[in-house]
């Protein structure tokens, strides 16, 4: 059997079914985007439920939204945007083969991710103390007293908080998975596994991280900013 000239030119990190590194990169990122498309539909169902209930119970959603901490929410948005920057710079460091810089940026990203989860935990604990977790101990009495101008029914108010916990919970779950993935990437980067020729794992984990950031970019106005106007 004759040797194929392609086999002789086989490069490091290039799977044999691809013509060149660019085609391999494009195929890998296309695959990741297909996965992210399924994630859009996954979150999409929740956004759809949110829209329908918000349309039906606008006052309850408005009062519920006023009760969650906008400062913590804004800080968390900023934390995630900063983490997206460190991921983008990290991918660039991997492209240029700067191992030390990549390890540093991945570490900072992980810290931002954990900070986000910690702040989220504080927010949830506040909701627990205020009896805003849907269930037998739920109470909207504080909202009725605090915002007498907004006529609300306690029962559908639970729907707002159910969606709040389901959507931020699913997002936090994605953050936890992201922290896991980035710990693994950090370990591999530390061992020097990534080169300018081969750094695909850094790139597609980066796509995942940015996607989770985008979900939060929408959750923030939809959950925190429904109605913050001064009450008449």
């Amino acid at each position, binding site marked *: 059997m004759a040797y194929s000239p392609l086999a002789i030119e086989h490069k490091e990190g290039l799977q044999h079914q691809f013509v060149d590194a660019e085609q391999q990169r494009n195929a890998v990122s*296309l695959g990741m985007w*297909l996965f992210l498309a399924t994630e*859009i539909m996954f979150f999409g169902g929740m956004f759809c439920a949110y829209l329908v209930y918000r349309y039906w119970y606008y006052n309850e959603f408005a009062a519920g939204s006023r009760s969650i901490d906008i400062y913590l929410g804004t800080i968390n948005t900023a934390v995630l945007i900063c983490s997206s920057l460190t991921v983008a710079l990290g991918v660039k460091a991997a492209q240029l083969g700067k191992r030390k810089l990549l390890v540093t940026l991945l570490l900072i990203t992980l810290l931002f991710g954990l900070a986000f989860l910690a702040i989220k935990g504080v927010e949830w604990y506040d909701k627990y103390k205020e009896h805003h977790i849907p269930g037998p101990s739920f109470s909207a009495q504080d909202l009725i007293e605090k915002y007498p101008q907004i006529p609300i029914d306690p029962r559908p108010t639970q729907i707002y908080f159910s969606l709040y916990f389901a959507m931020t919970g699913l997002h936090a779950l994605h953050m936890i998975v992201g922290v896991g993935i980035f710990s693994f990437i950090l370990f591999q980067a530390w061992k020097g596994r990534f080169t300018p020729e081969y750094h695909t794992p850094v790139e597609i984990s980066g796509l995942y991280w940015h*996607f989770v950031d985008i979900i939060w970019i929408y959750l923030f106005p939809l959950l925190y900013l429904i109605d913050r106007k001064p009450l008449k």
Partner: protein
Amino acid sequence: MSEHIVSSKLYIGIWATLMCLTVITATVAFVDLGPLNTVVALLIATLKALLVVLFFMHVKYTSEKLTKMVIVSAVFWLLILLFLSLADYTTRGIGHA
């Protein structure tokens, strides 16, 4: 063709824009714009998402048209889900008044 490498300056510029937009959207929420509050909040969110997708996720620089098609169709399918559901729920009262 080699991989496109974005300058760090541009990344930092995008980051600064995203931070500014976050502060703007949180501040504008306290101003009474009537029904426009929601519109403004969602427009700003969409602008932020676009910046992340195009620059941080390198979609602006990809030569692969299939990737762009996957993204556009995913968003299109999401909009079908949202718009057709709302077209039902928001019009149920019509004719039953």
